[in-house]
Structure formats: C-alpha cells, structure tokens
C-alpha cells in the first residue's frame, strides 16, 4: 500500500527506510533463530527440574555409583555428572564420536557453569536444579570441561577431561 504507517512518527523518507530496515532486521534475526530452534531442535538447556543439592550424593540419579556414561536403549548415551567445589565428577569421561549424548549435571554446592571448548556443550549448573544438555560430539580428541562461573576462590582450578573416541562397532 502507499500509506506508510511510520509516516506518523518519521518525516524524513530516508530515515523512514532505515527504520523499516532496522525493524525487518530484528524480525529476520529472530525469525531465523526461531526457525532453527523449531526445525533443528536447537534450544538452550531449559528442562526445569528440581533436586535437593544438599543431599545430592544420597539421591538416586546422582549417587556415586550412578555417575558416568551409560547407554540408552535407543543407542544414545546419558552422561551423569556432578559439579562440586572444585571439580567435575567423574573427572574423566570417554564418549564415542557422532553419538547423541544427554549430559545430566547437578551441583552439590554452589552455582557453577560448564563449557567444553571446541564443542557446543555448555550449561549453567544451579544448586536446586538439574541441568540437561543434548548434543553430539563430531570430532575425536581430548577436550576439557571448564567451570565458567565464579564459584569460590578455587574456581580457576575447576575442570575435568572429556575424551571422544572412535565409534567401535558394538557401541558402548
């Protein structure tokens, strides 16, 4: 239509064009992200599950003998880990490449964050809540899980190892 609604607030035609470009830019960026969110299931960790962090090792899911990498019936893997000052437990995990993994992590004490440089695995670990990240490691090699949220004077030292290995024929 020839009537431009922005006329009411913007007299200059060039500036009006720019205002439209800005609005369209905002919507396009939002739209692209929305499209990928829905089409590729690309969402940040948002599972909203609670747990009592002060009794974490007495829980069922985060009991000491339940930590580590486990196979699921559909071929994916679940990695169950704990963040506690100042390390991630178990401190070394091994995962096959190109396999869907679900990381489930909980804090035994304070706020932590964890990311793995070279991958897209990242999440906050909030006491009172369970974090869940779904991803797949596409390169083999040695990676580090680093704590990226200030959790106390030992924060610098909080990290653990992730090793991504070739997929053996029978899986885990």
């Amino acid at each position, binding site marked *: 239509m020839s009537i431009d609604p922005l006329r*009411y*607030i*913007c*007299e*200059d035609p060039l*500036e009006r064009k*720019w*205002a439209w*470009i*800005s*609005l369209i*830019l*905002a919507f396009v*960026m*939002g739209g692209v*992200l*929305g499209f*990928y*969110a829905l089409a590729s299931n*690309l*969402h*940040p*960790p*948002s599972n*909203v*599950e*609670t747990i009592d*962090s*002060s009794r974490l090792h007495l829980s069922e899911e985060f009991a000491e003998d339940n930590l580590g990498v486990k196979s699921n019936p559909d071929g994916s893997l679940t990695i169950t880990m704990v963040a506690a000052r100042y390390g991630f437990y178990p401190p070394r995990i091994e995962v096959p490449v190109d396999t869907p993994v679900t990381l489930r992590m909980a804090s035994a*004490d*304070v*706020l932590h*964050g964890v*990311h793995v*440089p*070279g991958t*897209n695995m*990242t*999440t*906050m670990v*909030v*006491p*009172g*809540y*369970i974090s869940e990240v779904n991803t797949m490691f596409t390169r083999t090699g*040695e990676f*580090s899980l*680093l*704590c*990226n*949220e*200030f*959790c*106390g*004077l*030992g*924060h*610098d*030292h909080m*990290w653990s190892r992730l090793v991504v290995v070739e997929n053996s024929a029978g899986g885990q």
Partner: protein
Amino acid sequence: MDDTKAAGLGLVNMWVGFIAFLAAAVMGLYQVLERSGLFPDLESPALYFASVSTHGVLMGFVLTTFLVVGFGYYTATTSLKQPLWNRRLAWFGFWLSITGVLLAAVPLLTGQASVLYTFYPPLKAHPAFYIGAALLVMGSWFWCLEMVMMMAVWKRAHPGETVPLAMFGTTANAIMWFITSLGVALEVVFQLIPWSLGLIETVDVGLARTLFSWTLHAIVYFWLFPAYIAMYTLLPKAAGGKLFSDQMGRVAFIMLLVFSIPIGFHHLYMDPFQAAGWKFLHMIGTFMVAVPTLITGFTIIASLEIAGRLRGGKGLLGWIAALPWSNPMVTAAGLGLLMLTMGGFGGMINASYSMNAMVHNTQWVTGHFHLIFAGTTVIMYFAIAYYLWPRMTGRRLYSNTLALTQLWLWFIGMLILTLPWHYLGIAGQPRRISSTPYDAALVQQWDASELAMIMGGFILLVSAVMLVFVLVRTQTNPQREPGMTVEYAEPLHPVLRIPRLLNGLAFWTALVVVYMIASYGYPILQFFLMETHGTTPWSI
C-alpha cells in the same frame, strides 16, 4: 539562580562517580597484571576476586548511578529552565546512596564480599554489603521521583508545549531505572539480606537469578541513556549543526523504555530453571531493543553530516573531515559510535538464543561489556564531563588538548584490552578466573592475547588519571568563564505539533508494566508453585 543549586548537586554526584572510577581503574590494572602470570608475587585468588568485586561495584554501580543522577539533575534544570522540585529530597537521596556505598565498601575491601558485582547466591557476602547495595539503589529512587515530578510540573505550566528532548529522555530513563531496579531490590531485600543475617535458612538460587535478570539488562540502558541524550541534545550544536530528527529521538527513547526491561532472560539462556518458550519470547524483545540503537545511529550520524556540510564538507564522505574534531564532544561521539557498532554486533550474538551457547560465560562476555560500556558509554561520560564542568563551575576547561588526548588514549586502550578478549572467549577461555591452570594445549592458544591485556590496562589507567587531572584543574582554574550555558540542539525541522504519545510517558509506563507481567509474571510465579529446594549459605 536555582541553576547553581542544581550545579552543586550535579558536581557533587559526578565527582563521587569519577573518584570511584579512578579507584576502580587502578584495580583494573592490578587485575591485568595479576592475570598476566608475569608477576608471581602478585598472584592471589583472594586479592584478585576482592579486586574484581570492588572494581565491578565501583564501575557498574557507583560511577554509573552517581553520574546518571548528577547529569540528570543538571539537565532537568537547564533544559526545563526550572528549579529543582525538592532540593531536600534530592540531597537526602544522595546521602542515602553514599551511606550505602560506604557500608558496602568495608566488606568489599576486606575480602568479605568477594561475590563479584553480580553477587549470585549461594556464595554469601557480609550482610553489610547487601544492605549497602540496597541503600545505594534506594537513594537513586529519590532522583527518579524528582525527574518525574519536574517533568509533570513543567507540563502543567506549559500546556500543549513540547517537552524538551533532553528532559524527555532523562525522565524516560528515570522511570525505566525505577522499574528495572525493583528486580534486584526484591532479591536483596527479601532474599539476600534476611539470608545473610540468618533470618531465613535457604535461598532459591533460581528465583534470585531470575529477579536479578529483571534488572540486569535494563541497567545497561540506564547507563547508556545519558550517552544517547548527550548525542541527541548536546552533540549537534557542539558540532556546529542541527539535530536531524527530534521526533525519532523521542521514538528511540520510548522504545528503550518499553523494550529494555522485559528481556532479561537472554542473561539466563543457559540456566535450567526457565523454560525455553520464555527465553524465546525474551529473545524477540532483545532484538527489538536493538532497533532504537540502530535508529539513534542513523539520527546522530545524519546530524553530524548536517554539521559537516554546513562547515563546507563536500562529496560522499568529505563532511567527516570537516567536523570540528578539536571539540571533545565530537571526538568522543565519533569514537563512541565506532565502539557502539563493534559492541553492538557482539551484543547481537549474545542475544541469539542458541548461538549464545558458544560465548556464554567466556571472556567474550568480558570483552563485550567492556567495549560497549567502558567504551561507548563511559567515553560519553567523559564528553559530558568536559562539556558540563565549565558550565557548572564557571571556569574554563583546563586543557582541550589534554582532553582530546585522554579520549583517544581511552579508545585505543579499550580496543587493545577488549578485542583480544573476544578472541579468547571463542577460544574457550572462561571468565572470572584469576589464573589459567588448565590443559597446556588450551593455555598455549591463549598466551599472546593475555599479554595484550596488560598493555590495554596501562593505557586505560593513564587515560583515567588524565581525566581526573583535567577535571580537578578545571574545577580550580583561576581563569573563570561565567555565563556559559548548556546549548541544547535545535531540530532541523522545528517541532510545531507533536503527537501526545511522543510528549508524555504515562501510557508507555503502563505498557511496560503490562509487558513485564507478561514476560516475568509466570516465570517468577513458578518458583512459588513448584517444590523447590533452597540453598544454605556458602563461603567464598
């Protein structure tokens, strides 16, 4: 006239801000030296994190609040040509805030509040820190009231007239700050203070972070507003031109008021206690809030082009060279706009929902906010200071050359400090670390960029010292220059009629409240509906 009383209030507030700034700048240098690994005797997590906490509080809460408040009082009286609504309340607010700062300073400086400027529980600081923070914020609320009342009084006395743009922006900022600061106030008053005093046993970390996120985005617009106000209303005349569009300035301020607050979840993308749908909603709002900045970019650059062409600049870009770069306001704005462009693009990545995962809590974030806040916003604070000091003190600016040098050093130092941080973030370096005791392969990748930090830090400290030096010498300059007034920009097209909605803030305030209930209502309510497990206090 009453102008001098506001000048006093303006000066005192802004001096507090700049003194805090200088102290924090010194700490900044200590931090980059400690991080470099070149001075083993300096290495100490306890000292480092106490410094980072103090540096963050001084820069992010003290410099900013006092500067915005001081600038606001002076702008209100000079743009409306009206006395302060209630001098006593204004000073009361100032003293309340100062009390808060001093109360919080003691635990901060003695290592009992090394919880960083975001003070996320369950790391627990000394209760005096939280009480001090609450008092600082509440003191600023008196300023908010003052701004709203002054605009209301002026409108009653000038029915049908257009509210001066500088005041329109200042009052929009005041309303926005009041609404956004409620988040952190609720967190501090109902959770952190009673918890740190032992009156309640546990704190729900999810609720605390959600409430803090309510404040966390719009606070940066609280800081940024004076920079934009200066660009819209002080820069055009300083550059020798006119404001390209007064109306679009109002549109930008209104959009900032409406869209800055209900978008805080882009700070919580990686947190498990909020559902993805809410985060997506906040993402859309976050992209919308980029629009007023894009509009501002256009209007300001167009205004500068007018000034450049009026001064004889020809050709497509000839007007740039023709601008009066010897004017600190013009130089600061030019450098500020460059940093705004770079920082703004970084911000768009941070806002991008799933892509945020690649930069969350890495040094990219540190680089981003230093570039955009310490860069764009703070360089405009310097410009405001150089412009207003002669007018508030009645004395000549001590040295234009020193002022320009200081601004250029700040720009160069900021780029050297922040650009490597962006790289380090993508290379996986976490933020908020005092050393790098990680896998050798990772650390080797980072080494060169770490050294850049020290150079940036030194240059910035020199620049910070220069700023305070020039302001002190201006304040005590025997060469007086009485009668200098604030010359607000004239719009290119005189504003004959203005739509009511662009001349008042009541409707937009109501809209913000509705939008806030929609964006934050259930996400906060959920904590009271589901069974959550709070956390007891943890020491640092």
